[in-house]
């Protein structure tokens, strides 16, 4: 085998010299152009790019050249029977030739690249070897294996080169088309880079070449053609199935080696968290880069969007290139914005909005919807602002902005809420701001879901509270804020319907149009009866937080009056109590406590509120009594920040490396992820 390896290498050594000569030629041309035409740094970079392209093309040709003659030359020169008559198994002959071909190609490529790395460092930078090295290797393998395959079938090296080129172009088109069109049978569209498929088919081509050489006698029989292609398709298909199964398994069950997390989000009372994680992972749920040659590249694969089951810590879904990922509170659906490239199955990109959304059914593990928000396939581009699920997960609201276009500065001139069912049906559009409106008073300043998700409340900036039944029901006015002096205007910023649908809390402030230090500011918080029978003013201050207890009968109002410590009000129908905060935490100054506390509802009427902040962790019960959390829980505070309360009332906290669930009442801490 060694003798055959040496013979093959010597037979093809011309390729190596060709590589060296080409390297020298490119270097000389670069130097000549550099002195003759380069005037600016941009010119030099352009020249480096040309040289990098030349080097890459040369490398591709050398890779093909290394494999083209391995078998075809033996057939053409009639030396194959002599070779096969040697006391070597066909597998060893094939292997020796393969290794020699690889060595030849590697030598030629190295002799081309290395001198130029020294002489034209700019071209090397343009090639991006440091970033693209795995990709270059994979594509070189595909090119080599394709050429080897054809070398087994054809009898002239030139025919092999032409056939390989044609096959490479056809494969590239096919792979890109498959990646663009999506492979629905995989469960995820374009769920892997085409680089992995290139690797799969490189292996299949190697196998088909080996089998054909081993079984096709003297390679003269026409039967080698069906043997080669049937084995190629069979093995390629088989490996593909294994890879698909493996990747699907990995996508569902593999845990990401997380190094850093960000944008951790849990819907209030939810069971699924979404986050961005930086870390190692074999496969993602979606394609990372639609461009070719981005496979296996950690530079592109390190950031993942992950949906987690808060009960088990299992990764329910992993994807990339997603924005605004949001899980429904019941944990069934995941919605996220995706780039424009994800919707190219449409005939033309011109009519598409800037972004589209995807909705995944995490229970069924399938995509429920993908595309632009319904109703936005029209003429104008809109940017997706945020996604919000109704409390029961039966409606998804997409906040989209109509931009003015590049000519007008690109600012958002109209905003709308686009409501849809998880499968994209029953679209409803609710305009928030209109570009043509003379006054901003009618713009919707705040909106909220009804507890059952079948209606939404809107509050205009001027204080008009309305209710809109879904889908497509007419809006009914519930209440309008009291009149203010002529020069004043209401600005409402808080709206909180109670879970019982009996009450709606609203909070706002009023300032004169031409604000001045001497103008008094009016502030107020109301509880409005949902049936429109009236409103109760409960505070003469603007609330920073409006929090309903789970039964919807108890409202907590937190505000930070200027110059005073934060205060907490508890309102129950006919009953109002105030509790100053900060007092139970003597290690905090009152001012610090006023501005740094975060208050969150635990969710059970008799358990009151959870307090989580730099000063410590504690609970305020329904009677207003404060109690510290356990020391172990309090110890988390300096490092961990509060995210949300999950379905079981546990506080989900994170330090951007770990995600914990804390049962404040019981004092227990559970690591959820990773």
């Amino acid at each position, binding site marked *: 085998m060694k003798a055959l390896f040496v013979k093959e290498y010597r037979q093809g050594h011309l390729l190596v010299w060709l590589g060296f000569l080409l390297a020298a030629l490119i270097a000389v041309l670069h130097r000549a152009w550099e002195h003759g035409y380069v005037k600016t740094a941009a010119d030099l970079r352009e020249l480096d790019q040309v040289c990098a392209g030349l080097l890459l093309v040369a490398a591709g040709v050398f890779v093909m050249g290394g494999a083209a003659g391995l078998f075809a030359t033996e057939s053409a020169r009639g030396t194959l029977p*002599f070779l*096969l008559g040697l006391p070597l198994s066909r597998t060893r002959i094939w292997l020796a030739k393969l290794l020699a071909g690889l060595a030849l190609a590697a030598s030629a490529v190295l002799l081309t690249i290395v001198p130029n790395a020294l002489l034209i460092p700019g071209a090397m930078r343009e090639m991006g070897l440091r970033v693209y090295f795995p990709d270059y290797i994979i594509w070189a393998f595909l090119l080599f294996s394709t050429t080897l395959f054809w070398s087994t079938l054809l009898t002239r090296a030139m025919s092999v080169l032409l056939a390989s080129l044609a096959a490479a172009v056809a494969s590239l088109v096919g792979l890109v088309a498959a990646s663009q069109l999506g492979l629905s049978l995989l469960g995820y569209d374009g769920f892997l880079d085409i680089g992995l498929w290139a690797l799969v088919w490189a292996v299949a081509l190697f196998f088909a070449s080996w089998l054909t050489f081993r079984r096709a006698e003297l390679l003269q029989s026409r039967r080698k053609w069906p043997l080669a292609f049937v084995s190629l398709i069979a093995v390629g298909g088989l490996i593909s199935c294994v890879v698909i199964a493996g990747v699907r398994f990995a996508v569902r069950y593999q845990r990401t080696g997380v190094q850093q997390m960000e944008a951790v989000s849990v819907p209030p009372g939810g069971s699924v968290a979404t986050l961005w994680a930086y870390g190692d992972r074999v496969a993602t749920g979606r394609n990372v880069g639609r461009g070719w040659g981005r496979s296996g590249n950690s530079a592109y694969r390190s950031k993942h969007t992950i949906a987690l089951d808060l009960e088990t810590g299992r990764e329910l879904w992993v994807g990339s290139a997603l924005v605004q990922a949001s899980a429904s509170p019941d944990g069934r659906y995941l919605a996220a914005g995706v780039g424009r490239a994800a919707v190219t199955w449409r005939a033309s990109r011109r009519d598409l909005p800037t972004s589209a959304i995807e909705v995944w059914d995490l229970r069924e593990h399938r995509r429920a919807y993908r595309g632009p928000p319904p109703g936005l396939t029209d003429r104008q581009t809109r940017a997706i602002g945020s996604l919000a699920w109704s409390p029961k997960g039966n409606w998804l609201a997409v906040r989209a902005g109509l931009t003015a276009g590049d000519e007008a500065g690109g600012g958002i001139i109209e905003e709308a809420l686009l409501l849809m069912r998880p499968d994209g049906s029953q679209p409803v559009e609710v305009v928030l701001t209109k570009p043509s409106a003379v006054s901003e008073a009618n713009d919707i300043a705040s909106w909220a879901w009804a507890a059952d998700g079948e209606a939404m409340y809107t509050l205009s900036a001027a204080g008009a509270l309305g209710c809109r039944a879904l889908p497509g029901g007419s809006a009914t006015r519930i209440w309008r804020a009291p009149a203010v002096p002529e020069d004043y205007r209401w600005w409402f910023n808080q709206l909180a319907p109670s879970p019982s649908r009996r009450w709606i809390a609203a909070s706002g402030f009023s300032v004169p149009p031409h604000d001045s230090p001497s103008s008094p500011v009016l502030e107020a918080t109301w509880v409005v009866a949902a049936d429109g029978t009236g409103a109760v003013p409960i505070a003469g201050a603007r609330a920073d937080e409006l929090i309903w207890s789970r039964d919807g009968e108890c409202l907590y109002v937190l505000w930070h009056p200027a110059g005073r410590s934060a205060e907490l009000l508890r309102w129950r129908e006919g009953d109002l109590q105030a509790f100053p905060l900060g007092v139970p935490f003597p290690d905090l100054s009152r001012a610090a406590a006023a501005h740094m506390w975060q208050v969150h509802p635990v969710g059970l009427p008799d358990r009151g509120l959870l307090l989580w902040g730099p000063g410590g962790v504690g609970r305020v019960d329904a009677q207003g009594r404060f109690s510290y959390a356990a020391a172990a829980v309090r110890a988390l505070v300096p490092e961990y920040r509060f995210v949300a309360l999950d379905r079981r009332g546990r506080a989900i906290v994170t330090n951007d490396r770990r995600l914990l669930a804390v049962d404040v009442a019981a004092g227990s801490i559970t690591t959820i992820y990773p």
Partner: protein
Amino acid sequence: MSENGFAITTQSLTKRFGRKVALNQVSARVPVGSIYGLMGPNGAGKTTFVRCLLNLLNPSSGSATVLGRDVVRDSVAVRQRVGHVAALQPLWEWMTVADLAGFMAGCYPRWKPEAVFGILNRVGIERAQKIQDLSRGQRTLAALAVAIGHEPELLLLDEALTGLDPISRREVLRSVIEVMHEEGRTVLITGQDIADMERVCDYVGFLVKGRLIWESPLEDLKAQVKRIRIEHPADSPPDFPVGAMRPERATRETEFTVSSFKPELLASLAGAGRRVEALDLSLEDIFVDLAQGETNRPSSASRPTP
């Protein structure tokens, strides 16, 4: 190692290329230490037979053993002990003769360079000569020289003498084939140069249309295949016996060839006014008669036990 004294044994060896049957139920036995000449017209299947022995072609059915090894299961082991030279064997032209010898040395577990270069010296081929600078005959000689470097127990010469000048051919016959024969090794020669084969072979086989129609020691062949000439009155010509080959009849003379001659045949053909005689045939005449007889009358191979 051989199988019951035979270097090559095939049992109903058949090779088809699509619909064409290149070898048809060939059952051949080549004794150890013999020089076996396998003859046949063009397209008879001689090269296919040799390639099947080296497992360059897979038999469609039947089996073959070489030096006691199955050619399909133990093909590598078989090729380690067999030398093979084909007609006008193409070689890697960029190599020198020494490169070729070195390459071959690396492919076999044992190698005897003096045997190789001894032959090359005798036929006037220098080590430094490139293959592309050699004549066709010299290339065959070079291939022959490197084919015996591993001291094969069996040498397969597939039309290897074709294209050699008389001097080279004689040198090959003397220094390669006869030496191997003296050392008790086996040589299988295929080809159509019957004069050379008659000179060196002690066993012969005739392959016609893929069928082995004759296989025996050369002396047996010559003893059994005879030309019968009968001089007879013009009005009483004899009938041709069953199996008569190349029958010819003139007014007073009838001739035909028989493949199983016995002295009793002369007595049975003799009669009033007839004079019967059995004529010896040259190997070439035997080859022609057997080939034509097989063409005219397909029959199973006659193969006396060697």
